């Protein structure tokens, strides 16, 4: 892998789900690039398509229900969408690590966690059972579990949520994948545990040189952990940029509205709610996806805006940026 090649390259991806009333588009023309060593965040509410994208990168969506309308996904140079089941199985673990939201159910309830870890290790590296067990203990240490020996013999139901999530992280990282996808990994955890897990992910990513795709509805968490942020709404990418740019200089009305609607721990500012509800994917709008709820909408918005480049690596899909940008780029 040359130093310039991105770890993840999603190009113009569009996905639909089969339903009783026909295919429903859940993702439209989303493009993402993640460079080696980057920590990138996906932010959105329900229906935004953030989880769907993350799962599709690892091809974890039920194959008989998902339709790829367009686009490609490449992880570390491997084409994900055209990989067959065996190739995909090889990719998962060795190139793509996945952390789920519910740690308790992500682990097999009938095996001790050390055994699960050793199994995963042997899947991706040729080594003896003893060696795999040794490495499993090492990995448990790496995720800051003290008395790894004792924990390795426990079953998931005997461990706390935070502990289980550490094990899941260990499982995801044991083969040093190029990309770690974390789908709302701390949503089900207490706030103090969350802080620990976020620090852990940050440290591990740095140690292994792994890039991270962090999916969350929590803009605050994403802003603390991620260098770059992609904001999704209604199945489309509405803004992307460095987390500093997104927080301090948002250029899409949805991002601005989201920031204004978040209660802040440090002071009582007036909460500006966003009127209405997130869009129903069954009614795909022709124009801008945020139009029904946008306080700054104008006539132009009836047509779907392209992604305008505000600066390098900061784009927003909003007509308000048309004059400011050099010209539309579908970045």
């Amino acid at each position, binding site marked *: 892998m040359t130093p310039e090649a991105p770890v993840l390259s999603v190009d113009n991806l569009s996905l639909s*789900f089969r339903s009783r009333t026909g295919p*429903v588009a859940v993702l439209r023309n989303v493009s993402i690039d993640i460079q080696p060593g980057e920590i990138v965040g996906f932010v959105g509410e329900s229906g935004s398509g953030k989880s*769907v994208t993350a799962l599709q990168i690892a091809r974890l969506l039920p194959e008989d229900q998902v339709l790829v309308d367009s686009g490609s996904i490449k992880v570390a140079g491997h084409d994900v969408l055209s990989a067959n089941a065996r190739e995909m199985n090889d990719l998962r673990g060795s190139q793509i690590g996945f952390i789920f939201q519910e740690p308790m159910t992500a682990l097999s309830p009938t095996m001790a966690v050390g055994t699960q870890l050793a199994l995963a290790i042997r899947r991706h590296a040729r080594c003896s059972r003893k060696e795999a067990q040794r490495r499993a203990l090492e990995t448990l240490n790496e995720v800051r579990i003290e008395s790894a020996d004792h924990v390795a013999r426990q079953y998931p139901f005997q461990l706390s949520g935070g502990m289980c999530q550490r094990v899941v992280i260990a499982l995801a990282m044991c083969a040093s994948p190029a990309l770690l996808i974390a*789908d709302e990994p701390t949503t089900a955890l207490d706030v103090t545990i969350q802080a620990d897990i976020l620090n852990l992910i940050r440290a591990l990513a740095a140690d292994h040189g792994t890039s991270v795709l962090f999916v969350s509805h929590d803009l605050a968490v994403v802003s603390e952990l991620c260098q770059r942020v992609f904001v999704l709404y209604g199945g489309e990418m509405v803004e992307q940029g460095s987390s500093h740019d997104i927080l301090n200089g948002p250029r899409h009305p949805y991002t601005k509205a989201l920031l204004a609607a978040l209660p802040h721990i440090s002071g009582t500012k007036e909460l500006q709610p966003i009127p209405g509800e997130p869009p129903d*994917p069954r009614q795909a709008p022709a124009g801008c996806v945020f139009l029904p709820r946008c306080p700054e909408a104008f006539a132009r918005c009836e047509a779907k805006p392209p992604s305008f480049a505000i600066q390098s690596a900061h784009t927003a899909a909003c007509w308000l940026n048309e004059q400011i940008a050099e010209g539309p780029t579908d970045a």
Partner: protein
Amino acid sequence: MRMPGVSTRVAKATLTLRSLLTNPVTATALSVVILLLLVGVLAPVVAPYGATSVDLANRLAPMSGSHLLGTDEVGRDILSRLLYGVRISVGVSIATVACAAVIGMLLGTVAGYFGRWADTLIMRAIDVVLSFPSLILAIALAAALGPNLLNAALAIAIVKIPIYARLAYAETLSTRQQLYVRAAKTFGVGNAFIVRRHILPNIRSSIIVQTTLDLGDVILLISTLGFLGLGAQPPTPEWGAMISTGWHYLIDQWWYPTFTGAAIFLTVMSFNLLGDGVRDLLDPTGRD
């Protein structure tokens, strides 16, 4: 992961005539069932002869123009007896299943909601009944009560009640945990209201699914008891009883037991397939 457009709690699918008709197998089964019900109701109109009109001159006559399916050992028209027999088989089974379902549902709900001694008393009694093989128990009960149709139905109902009781019990236990039940308690509404308005309506659909699955089985049970002489007594045109006398004539007058058996087969099959179709639509674990 939230699948788009699907609420995180699966909305109860609506069971409409249209939804039943989409599946060709279910649609066929439904048509046959409707036909059977019509025949049962209209038997006096549709049947060419009475069910008990004896005609000794025409005993064991083969299929002909005047007797489409032949006659039995005392000259009664088999077709007419089959048609009248629908009333017994289908009618009695519907009544039996309905009774078993209602009684079982009430028992199971009381046991599941109030718990403790009600639970122990009711569910252990249910366990006792369930520990007997159902057919043997039905036979024993029917024999003990005396051989007639009503007692046979009663025996079958008793045998079937535990299924509904257990189903209602399990569903009540899980519904009781729902937040809206806890909310109702904070309003100060009484237990009777909670059971009536919250528990029963929410367990209804799984009970209904079970009844549609059971109808076919109960028809078979009635026929079995009839065959053994424990159900309807002659001259009642009950299919099982007809086979009981009919199978002696299997070699020479094959039409007699064969068509009767076919009637049972067709009826049970249709109800079973219909039940499967209903279950597929109302299955709480179904995904969009």
